[in-house]
């Protein structure tokens, strides 16, 4: 049950008890977030019904097409920044021709999934938390539960399915555009010929890095939807609560994307 009441408790009698409760509450909340994630994944067996298909396509449109402009700008500039940063260092050793390989390597494994994850968390994730939070405040979620329509299946699953596909796609797109941005800077600022840059870039494009990057992006999709919906479902106290949910979802998403990104790299390298 998504709609729930906070438990009523006697005030804690000691600092130890207060601490114990706090730890217990945090664990319970983590469990609840996990329950939302697992519930939505389990509901994916209904992803091919007519309504779900329609919802998933709508969500994909919202996640991908609507965030395309901002993702494009971010991707291009990240590539430019990387190329400039690395190129200036490499020039000291007369190795600026290698800029392409460095940009490609860092985009594929780290910056591609990371930047697309952050941008989508800040835009799509925040919107999701606000929408779910508003529905909570407006008793729409309660109405769904009374009609015996599972909010995890009805609301979270289409978002999760859409994001699991979109974030990797966006990540790949970010990599491509980033490498392109790097090429422009290499050519104009570092006088590296286009052909040399791309030759180097392609030589260093490892399939493993690509897969690890896409895997990360895939995980980020789940994280963003789980965190945003979890925060949305936790909303109470009207408009103020919706603001809190939005803010908290962005903060938590950023932290998790950083931490999980690091550990996935560790796992594979």
């Amino acid at each position, binding site marked *: 049950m998504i709609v729930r009441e906070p438990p009523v408790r006697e005030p804690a009698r000691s600092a130890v008890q207060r601490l114990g409760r706090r730890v217990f509450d945090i664990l319970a909340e983590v469990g609840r977030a996990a329950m939302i994630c697992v519930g939505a994944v389990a509901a994916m067996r209904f992803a091919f019904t007519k309504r779900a298909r329609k919802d998933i396509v709508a969500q994909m449109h919202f996640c991908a097409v609507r965030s395309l402009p901002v993702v494009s700008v971010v991707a291009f500039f990240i590539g430019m920044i990387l190329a400039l940063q690395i190129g200036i260092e490499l020039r000291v050793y007369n190795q600026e021709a290698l800029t392409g390989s460095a940009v490609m390597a860092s985009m594929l494994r780290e910056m591609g999934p990371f930047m697309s994850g952050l941008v989508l968390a800040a835009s799509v994730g925040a919107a999701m938390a606000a929408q779910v939070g508003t529905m909570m405040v407006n008793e729409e979620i309660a109405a769904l539960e*009374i009609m015996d329509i599972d909010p995890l299946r009805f609301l979270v699953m289409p978002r999760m399915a859409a994001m699991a596909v979109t974030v990797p796609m966006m990540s790949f797109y970010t990599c491509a555009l980033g490498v392109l941005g790097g090429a422009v800077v290499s050519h104009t600022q570092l006088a590296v010929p286009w052909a040399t840059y791309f030759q180097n870039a392609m030589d260093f494009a490892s399939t493993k890095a690509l897969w690890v990057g896409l895997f990360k992006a895939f995980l980020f999709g789940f994280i963003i939807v789980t965190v945003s919906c979890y925060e949305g479902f936790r909303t109470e106290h009207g408009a103020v609560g919706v603001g809190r949910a939005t803010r908290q979802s962005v903060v938590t998403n950023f932290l998790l994307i950083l931490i999980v990104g690091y550990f996935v790299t560790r796992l594979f390298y």
Partner: protein
Amino acid sequence: MIRFEHVTKVFGSGKRVLDDVSYEVERGEIFTIVGPSGTGKSVSLKHMIRLLSPTSGRVWVGDDCVSEAEGRELSRIRSRFGYLFQSAALLAWMDVYDNVALPLREKTRLTEGEIEFKVRDALEKVGLGGEGASMPSDLSGGMQKRAGLARAIVTEPEIVLYDEPTSGLDPVTSRRIDELIADLSSRLGITSVVVTHDLHSALSISTRIAMLGGGKVLSIEPPSAFIHSTLPQARAFLEAQYITRRGAWEANRP
């Protein structure tokens, strides 16, 4: 049909909203709950479908203890209900038609044609025949309420809970909704629990009226007795709507 057994509800803030409340709504009744704002009328309704759980005591629906049911059992009990939220609670991104069709599409195997017939009928009944394609945000509060009402009754439930069905409506539409509620109960035998501030509607359609105040049920009386009530809270309520012991609507105007 719906029985409150010594129900006490204390919220986290320590606020005691219901205090050892016991009463029973009979099958087929139109049971009206009146009382000042903030006395726990909506809270009472929410206990009947377990959107809230009692701090102590029990709530029964027929032979099922709804306040202790979980999982499938709870789903089964809830499926007997239609619920009109005080806030209407329509899904904002769907138009009125899709909102009303939602429980049928999700919970029945009806074809789209059969669904359309039922949805049009429900919208017609609440006077929103032409508003199927409107988005909830484009409707007035009263119209949203009626769309919520259509959604609550479209599944033809056994029990319907109405939270202020006529608030925000013009008097003519209010009477129409009253007639609808009365009609549903007399024709289909639906049990209705109505929360309202509108004593004119309470007096004309109810089988019994419960007056809530201070966390207690102050009185439960049929309209004929309620209008002669000597309870100060009830008198204040009646007189605020120009209803006197001599009868409703009669000249008692300032």
